[in-house]
Structure formats: structure tokens, C-alpha cells
């Protein structure tokens, strides 16, 4: 057993309102420099939709992540060593700027300086790459925002194309069936990162003390294999500095005692961050699991922070008490492991992403009753001769379960249904407690299907709907790895605040 610590995340999609505040917070702090205009380390996508960059999930095009060869071994989908050598000066699987979008601003000055004329002056779009005027804007970082039934964007969602039959695809486009939800994405800080494996220079590393994946700006030599190697397309090439960049999980903020900016600013409070302890010895075996078993294999890597054996293993690896305590209080551990509610995004890429999602239980089922369209109808008790509508939410879901399975469980529909049964049980139990309009036998049936106790329902509800700042963000005090290793007493977190910023800095001595 090789116990290590990882800063891990949960996004609760039921609470995401798609406001992009997280994206803007990140942009303002990290990517407002020249060369980074097109980068969105944090972005929010509408699903079904093609996302950013366009169709990033289609690895037949972008060649990101890992695949198993005929003998069950893992290899990068991009290329092996020979391929890396022959393609070193020309990576054929790079997205073009057009697949992201050409960033622009507006000529606001003209609004003030235009001479008097017959027409109202306008602020024309100006490219942030070339500086030329752009007559038509054809793409943006969230160009398909809210376009749930779009013939272009939703219909070309790789998950829709892959997992749904022709008739299901058609029904998603009909007005009554149109549905969408939001999917915020940041770097997953994977346990088995494709970007690290693809880098010919060895410039990318996973920080030993907290598992944050970083690109050394000193060592990066602009080969851009990481851009292709990451299946989530979360490393970006800065055309101005000639180095690749990616989400750094705001480690200067973490080290000064604050949650990352996108977490801190989240309006819907959908984001949770916390430490988990995992067994690094099992990563390869887990990443080689068959598609069906990937979710369980990854969950099995995360160890119980109360288990004395795990605690002893952690201490052997120099993990300090503060980190172990943080792991015991981690909201991520509860969502992922204790309740089994949060799932990794696209586990079939086999990078073992450490950002987990609670899938959205949307929409609340409505019904037309007496000619009225009532959204509360689904909440009321059904006639005695049928099963209550809430119980059927999973089977009657507007978004087909195959679609959600394609996103979160590598196509394993049973696995995603288990999660939905739990979400339905929590909703029905809390409704019966607080409003009292649920039939007792329906609630019992829901609890039985979810394998949840009423107490568990209450804990899930409390961490979902009523969590405090300290419950959502459980970050131990960090003074780089030394304080975490117990060599130093925890420092005043704000003593490091001024030193935070993007750029050249030395990598820590301990890195995996």
C-alpha cells in the first residue's frame, strides 16, 4: 500500500445555474495575459452540446487519453515512443485555434471618439490574436450555451452520436423533449494523467503533497503533446510565451488558506473541495479495468481515512496529521465513497480524473392536469393504483440514461441508475418529511432501491443544500510539502499570499 494525498473535487450539477461566474473568476486571475486570451481553464458547457474545444470528447479526432492494447496494457491513444519521435516536430492531432475560437474584444473607443454623423457609432469586434476587425463572429467559448435542442450543437454532441439510437436522437430535438444541463469543467488533476505521459520533456508533474498537476514553465519546450494527450483538452498552448499552461487549481490560493477562485466565486455553491487518501499502487490495475468496472475500480483506490492501516500507510509516506484530519472531514470522500453519488467524467479515458460530478436530477417532472401545465405535479402523490411519479423519474427521465452513462460511467447504465435512485430517494424522503405529500410506501420503496437509510438521506440533504463555507472547502494548512510533511508547524496562511502568481518558479523537490 502506497498511500498518497490528493486535493479532490466534487461538482454538484443539480445546483449549477450556468452563470459562468467561475469562468470569469478564473479568467480574471490567470488568463488575462497575452497569448492566453482563448484559454478557459474553467469553462461551463451546455450538455447536450459540442463543448469547448468543439467535440473535445471525440477521441477519434483528438487522440487524447489512454486505451488498452490487445494484451490489456495501457498505452497513450496519441502515440507510443516511436510515434513521439517521428511526430516530434509536427503533432498531427492538435486542435486548431478555430476549434477553440478566435478571441476578440470590441473597439469601444469608437463609441466615444466617432465624429458626428447620421448613424449611431458601433463598437466593431477586434481579434485579440491578429488585431484586425472581425466582420463575423463564428465561435466563442460557450457558443452553444443553452442550445439544448440545437440541430448543429446538441445533435453533434459525441455522446449523443455514440450512445443514442436514431429515434432517441430525433426525440431530443422535439420541443417538448428538449433538455439541457450545465457541465462546468476544470483540469481533473488525474491520478494517471495523459498530459504527463505525453510530454517529451518531462515538464509536467504531479505534485507529491497534494496531487496537483502542473506544467513547469522553465522546462516546457513547446512540443504541445500534452494538448493532445489530455482527453479533456485542459492543457492549452500560450502562443505568446511558447509554453503550455493549464489549471493550477489556484495552488497559491490553496497555500494561503483559500479555496480556488472558481470554487470561491460559485454562485450556486455547487463546488466542494477536500483531501482524499488513495493507494497509488493500485492505479495501473484500476486504469486497466474493463469499461464496466472503471467507476468501481477508481472508487476502490480511494481509501477510508479512518482505517488505522490507511493512516499508518499515510504516515509512512510522510503525510502529516493535518492532511489526514482534512481527509476525514472531506466532503469529497462523502460524496464519492460513502454515498457513492459522485462520478468521474468520462472514466473510459482511463486517466483516473479526480474531479467528480453528482449528475443532475433534471428536470422536475411536470404534468398537464385539467389543461394546466404544473411543475409541481410530479411532486404530488400519484393515484393509489399506480406508482408515484417520483419513483418513475429515473425510467421516464427526459435525458436518456444511456446519455448520462456515456458521460459518467463509460456506458454502464446500471451504475448511473444506482446514483439516480439515491438522488430520487433523498428528494422523496425530504419531501415527505417537510411537505408531507408523499405516500409512505413510495418513500420506503425509494429508500429500498437506493439502499439508503433516512439518516443518510438527511446527511446528503444537509451537505447538498445547507453546507457552510467550511464544510464545502476543507483544505488543510499548506506550507508547500514541508508543512504537510510535518516538518514545519503550520504557518500563518496569509504570509504566502503576496507571493502567489503565474510564471516561472521552482518545482518542489518531491514530485511523482
Amino acid at each position, binding site marked *: 500500500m502506497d498511500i498518497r494525498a490528493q486535493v479532490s473535487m466534487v461538482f454538484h450539477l443539480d445546483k449549477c445555474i450556468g452563470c459562468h461566474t467561475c469562468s470569469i473568476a478564473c479568467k480574471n486571475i490567470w488568463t488575462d495575459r497575452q497569448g492566453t486570451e482563448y484559454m478557459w481553464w474553467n469553462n461551463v458547457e451546455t450538455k447536450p452540446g*459540442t463543448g469547448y*474545444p*468543439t*467535440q473535445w470528447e*471525440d477521441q477519434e*479526432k*483528438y487522440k487524447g487519453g489512454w486505451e488498452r492494447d490487445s494484451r490489456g496494457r495501457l498505452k497513450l491513444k496519441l502515440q507510443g515512443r516511436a510515434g513521439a519521435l517521428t511526430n516530434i516536430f*509536427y503533432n*498531427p*492531432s*492538435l*486542435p*486548431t485555434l*478555430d*476549434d477553440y*475560437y478566435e478571441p476578440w474584444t470590441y473597439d469601444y473607443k469608437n463609441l466615444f471618439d466617432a465624429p458626428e454623423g447620421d448613424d449611431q457609432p458601433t463598437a466593431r469586434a477586434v481579434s485579440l490574436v491578429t488585431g484586425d476587425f472581425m466582420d463575423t463572429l*463564428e*465561435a466563442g467559448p460557450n457558443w452553444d450555451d443553452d442550445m439544448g435542442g440545437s*440541430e*448543429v450543437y446538441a*445533435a*453533434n454532441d459525441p455522446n449523443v452520436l455514440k450512445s443514442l439510437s436514431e429515434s432517441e436522437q430525433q426525440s431530443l430535438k422535439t420541443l417538448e423533449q428538449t433538455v439541457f444541463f450545465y457541465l462546468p469543467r476544470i483540469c481533473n488533476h488525474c491520478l494517471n494523467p495523459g498530459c504527463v505521459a505525453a510530454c517529451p520533456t518531462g515538464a509536467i508533474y504531479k505534485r507529491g503533497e497534494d496531487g496537483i498537476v502542473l506544467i513547469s514553465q522553465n522546462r516546457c519546450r513547446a512540443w504541445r503533446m500534452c494538448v493532445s494527450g489530455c482527453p479533456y483538452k485542459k492543457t492549452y498552448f500560450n502562443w505568446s510565451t511558447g509554453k503550455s499552461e493549464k489549471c493550477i487549481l489556484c495552488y497559491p490560493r490553496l497555500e494561503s488558506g483559500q479555496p480556488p477562485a472558481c470554487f470561491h466565486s460559485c454562485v450556486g455553491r455547487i463546488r466542494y473541495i477536500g483531501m482524499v487518501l488513495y493507494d497509488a499502487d493500485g492505479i495501473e490495475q484500476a486504469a486497466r479495468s474493463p469499461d464496466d468496472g472503471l467507476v468501481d475500480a477508481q472508487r476502490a483506490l480511494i481509501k477510508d481515512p479512518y482505517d488505522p492501516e490507511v493512516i499508518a500507510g499515510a504516515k509512512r509516506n510522510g503525510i502529516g496529521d493535518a492532511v489526514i484530519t482534512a481527509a476525514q472531514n472531506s466532503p469529497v470522500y462523502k460524496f464519492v465513497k460513502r454515498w457513492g453519488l459522485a462520478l468521474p467524467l468520462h472514466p473510459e479515458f482511463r486517466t483516473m480524473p479526480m474531479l467528480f460530478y453528482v449528475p443532475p436530477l433534471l428536470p422536475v417532472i411536470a404534468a398537464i392536469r385539467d389543461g394546466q401545465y404544473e411543475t409541481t405535479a410530479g411532486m404530488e402523490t400519484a393515484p393509489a393504483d399506480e406508482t408515484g411519479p417520483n419513483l418513475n423519474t429515473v425510467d421516464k427521465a427526459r435525458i436518456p440514461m444511456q446519455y448520462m452513462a456515456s458521460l459518467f460511467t463509460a456506458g454502464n447504465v446500471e451504475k448511473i441508475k444506482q446514483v439516480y435512485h439515491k438522488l430520487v430517494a433523498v428528494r422523496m424522503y425530504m419531501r415527505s418529511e417537510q411537505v408531507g405529500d408523499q405516500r409512505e410506501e413510495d418513500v420506503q420503496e425509494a429508500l429500498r432501491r437506493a439502499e439508503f437509510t433516512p439518516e443518510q438521506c438527511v446527511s446528503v440533504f444537509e451537505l447538498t443544500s445547507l453546507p457552510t463555507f467550511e464544510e464545502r472547502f476543507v483544505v488543510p494548512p499548506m506550507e508547500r510539502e514541508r508543512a504537510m510533511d510535518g516538518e514545519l508547524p503550520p504557518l500563518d496562511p496569509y504570509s504566502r499570499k503576496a507571493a502567489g502568481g503565474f510564471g516561472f518558479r521552482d518545482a518542489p523537490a518531491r514530485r511523482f
Partner: protein
Amino acid sequence: MLNAPSRRRARFKQVLLVSAAIGLGVSTTGTWAGDASAGATLFQQKCAACHTIGQGDRVGPDLKGVTKERDEAWLKEWLKDPAAMIASGDPGAKELSSKYPMTMPNLGLSDQQIDDLIAYMAQDGAAGAQSSAGGAAESAAAPAAAASAESAGSADQGELLFTGEASFRNGGPSCAACHSVAGLGGGSMGPDLTSTHSRLGDAMITWPSAMAPMQPIFSADPLTDSEKADLLAFFKAKAANPNQSSGGPVGMLLGLSIIGVAALGAIVSFVWRRRIIAVREPMVSGTGRWRR
């Protein structure tokens, strides 16, 4: 103890010495390492504009007997870089620069060329005399035809005369010693003659015997009528079509480059045929294999 690079340099020097020795053994002149007949051609091209052998001083001194006056090392150093030698304060070089106001230009000669020239000068122009005598015999044979064609000169022969590949009958220096034309190159002391004919017409051929810088050179060694006709034909053709002659090697190089680039492009697009060209654009426009 020698380090690796200087050992390698030492070995390289040995090889040079051995090959030089073999060259000496083979050489027929015996005294000088250079090839006097190659030196004769070089002299015509590079030196004869300013120097003679046995026909008196012009821009520069008469070089008859120069190899007896100066030792070989001095000559070599002088020919390599005259300005540097004057600057170094060598008494012989200083004397020359005070006597002749025009400093001899650096001709960019290789060591072998210098050897050739010295070998030629050591014979006091004998090889040159022979070769120009031979040239005279040749041009005496051919030019009966040229004369009958009423000064309709041959542009090809003119080109040979211009570059110095064919000698002038009276031993004047080749035009390329001082002038250049597009595609052939030449000296930079006088103006480029590519399009001169279009400005001056046939009158340009009177310049060698009339105009200040050239007159002292060519008054002693005048051009013959057939040579003038050949040169005029050459300049006329050049002025009419400046790139024609250069079309040969340059055109071929251009053609080969285009074919090479096209072949490279074909190979690249085959090897990387599965590369990403664009994802968003074909998806939105509904072309390619993406459906709408």
C-alpha cells in the same frame, strides 16, 4: 597532451601537407606549386584591368619580374589582402600605396588561385602569351565568317569575351574584371552593363577607347572590330532580355525547387493524412462526414 579537437586539427594538417607534397611532385612547373595556364586565365579575368606584364605601368605597376623582386611569401600575403598588409606597416606595401594612389582591392582569391597566379607571373606571362597567341589563331580562323556577316556579331562569342573565357586578340582584360551583367556576375569596379545597351545603343562600344577610366587600359590593347560586334550583340541581347542567359541554371533551380516542394507536400499530406485540419468549421457548415 593534446585535447581531442586539436589532435584532430593536427591530423588534418598532416593530411594537407601530404596532399600538398603529392601536388608538388605532380606539378610540371617544378619551381612553383601553381598551374601557370590556370593562372593565365585568372590574370585575364582579375588582374589585367590594372596590370600588364612587360607593357608598362597602368593603374598598377608592370608585373614583369615581380617574382624576382619580391619573395613568394610576400606576394602571397599581398594577394591575399592588400589593405591588411598596408595597415600592418610593411615597408614594401607602404611604398606601393604611396606610389599608386588607387589601393589594390581585395580580390578574394583562394590559396590555390594565388599559387596559380604566382606561377604564371614567374614565367613573365609566357603561358599567357602562348594562350593568347592560340586564342588569336582561333579567332583568326573563325572571324572570316564574322567579317563577311557585316558586323553581325555572335552574342554567344560576346558572352565568352565578356566573362574572359575567350581572350581578346590584343590581350586586353575581360569586361567581367570590372563590370557585371545579370545572371553572369562579374566585378564591381565599373557599372553594371545589363541594360546599358538600351540607353547608349551601339555607341557604348566606343567607351573602352575613349572614356577616362578605360581609355588607358584599352588604348594599348584595342578591341578588334569582330570583338566589338560580338560584344555589342551580347549586350543587345542582354538588354532585350536580362534573364535569358541566367534562365539556364536559375530557371532549372527554380523548377527543381517547385517540383521538390510539391513532392514534399504530397509526402507530408500522405503521411499525416489523418491529421486534424478542422473540427468546428465542417461541423457547423454541415460538410464532410459530419451530419446536420
